[in-house]
């Protein structure tokens, strides 16, 4: 009797594992497809379209930013309205350390992450213990203060003119200075972060986060310290933003306060929602939409005279957000999942 029971348990568990393996193989195919697509894209971008490569450098940076915010919003139900500030803290830390203190970008990079995470820690500890939109309020404040401080503290930050002439990342034998090199470098980091996020989400940590999002009291009764997990993810998302900031700094070689404006924070939040919350693919899709919309508008303004594209851009973000909320509240990733392209959750009855 006992033997049959053990056998049953073993068989059940191995079948469960098999099921998981099948699913993960399916997902790995998508990861592989993404890597291939990223690797081969420069081969088809030629001639007059070569500016697209530079655009995709920005795209990769946005992917990192939106992925971090996606983890925070989708898995802990918290909003950071000052994510551009964390992006900016990373960028400015990297720039100042290389320009003023002569540090190598490779050293400035982790140091910038440490600085940004410290800021996130100080904002996160008091606000994430409370229930409600306290983190959103605090980060809103940081987002607004950041640009003002960067403008005002001109001896250190270059004021409204920003900092220019920042060194590139260098691999010793060659600097990462052309579009194509930067493209591969940025997307290497972006894909690594994508996979790290994917792995975190699909683990015991991910289950704990989903549990907190679903019912915080029930999660805590199971021994899960909700405030601690929220803080961890908030700091992680700030670290991602800092990585994006350092990449921006050492690829574009010029930063100014306007780049890290409050408007960018709002756009990032919008892209998380449009891409699809609680779905790492949503982070990717959201970031690509973020760079596609202004491009699309440039094409429009070239063909139709007299259109104010800056005003139109904001209107389009708003309209897209409204349409997504009405027709596919789970974002584009959720829509793709529904038509079976990205199977998010399998519903089978055994």
């Amino acid at each position, binding site marked *: 009797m006992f033997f049959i029971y053990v056998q049953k348990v073993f068989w059940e568990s191995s079948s*469960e594992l098999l099921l998981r393996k099948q699913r993960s193989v399916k997902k790995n195919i998508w990861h592989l497809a993404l890597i291939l697509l990223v690797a081969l894209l420069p081969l088809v971008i030629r001639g007059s379209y070569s500016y697209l490569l530079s655009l995709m450098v920005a795209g990769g940076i946005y992917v990192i930013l939106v992925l971090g915010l996606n983890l925070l919003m989708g898995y802990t139900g918290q909003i950071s309205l000052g994510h551009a500030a964390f992006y900016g803290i990373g960028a400015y830390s990297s720039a100042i350390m290389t320009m003023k203190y002569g540090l190598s970008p490779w050293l400035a990079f982790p140091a910038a992450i440490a600085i940004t995470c410290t800021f996130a820690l100080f904002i996160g500890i008091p606000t994430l213990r409370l229930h409600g939109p306290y983190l959103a309020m605090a980060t809103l404040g940081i987002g607004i203060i950041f640009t003002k401080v960067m403008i005002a503290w001109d001896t250190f930050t270059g004021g409204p003119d920003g900092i220019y002439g920042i060194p590139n990342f260098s691999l010793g034998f060659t600097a990462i200075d052309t579009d194509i090199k930067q493209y591969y470098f940025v997307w290497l980091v972006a894909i690594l972060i994508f996979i790290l996020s994917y792995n975190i989400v699909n*683990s015991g940590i991910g289950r704990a986060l989903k549990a907190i999002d679903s019912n915080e009291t029930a999660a805590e009764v199971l*021994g899960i310290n*909700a405030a601690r997990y929220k803080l961890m993810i908030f700091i992680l998302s700030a670290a991602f933003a800092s990585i994006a900031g350092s990449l921006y700094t050492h690829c574009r070689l010029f930063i100014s306060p306007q780049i890290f404006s409050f408007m960018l924070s709002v756009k990032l939040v919008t892209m998380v929602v449009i891409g699809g919350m*609680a779905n790492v693919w949503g982070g990717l899709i959201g970031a690509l939409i973020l760079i596609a919309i202004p491009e699309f508008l440039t094409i429009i303004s070239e063909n139709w005279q007299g259109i104010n594209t800056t005003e139109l851009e904001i209107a389009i973000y708003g309209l897209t957000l409204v349409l997504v909320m009405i027709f596919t509240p789970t974002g584009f990733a959720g829509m793709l999942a529904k038509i079976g392209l990205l199977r998010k959750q399998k519903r089978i*009855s055994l």
Partner: protein
Amino acid sequence: MSILEVNNLRKEFAGLVAVADVSFAINRGEIAAIIGPNGAGKTTTFNLLSGVTDATSGEVRYDGQVISGLKSYQITPLGVVRTFQNVRLFHNMTVMENVMTGHHIRVKPKMLTAAIRLPKFFRQEQITMEYSIKLLDFVGLEEKAQLMADQLPYGQQRLLEIARALATQPKLLLLDEPAAGLNLKETTELSRLIRRIQRQGITIILVEHDMELVMGIADRIIVLDRGQKIAEGTPEEIRNDQKVITAYLGE
């Protein structure tokens, strides 16, 4: 030795006394029931025992250690876990994942281990998965493992919540009205399940309205009325207690 000692536990909500200096002790390995009319303070008592709300005064000792004042996420690892009157499952997860979440604190997964998929991650997932399937089998839900939690009928959702609570490996299980919303057949199965849990060496306290269930399985009953303990004893004693009859039927 008693597993749980409650001394003069008190909870006031803006002047309203929900639990008024209640004291009782729970013996190791027994099934104890807390009963009482609506508003007697049963669920509040559970909230105090499990750290969901803080007591105004008084003390709760579990295994000799003071647990009043601790948060629920600090109490559960010590071996005390509860279920809820209104089932609180994680609807964004499968049945299996719900139970696996319960086992979280026993494997303590680390972010880095998960992010870079160290061998330890696979070992921990394997342990959690096998343990969870064993528990689903224990409550009779193994065939529903891959369904989303909200696809289960209500009665099975209650069983799932119990399995999820058991996944934390408790020594003391608090069941808040486990029979609410169950039909007669399901209630009978539930009482068998509670007995089977007891046989695993787990002490059980239940808050319940279903008198037949309580009288059938409880070793000892504590009766609350308007926040005060009015009686304590075996089902037989409680059935004949004048104070209890008055509390339930009125003067």
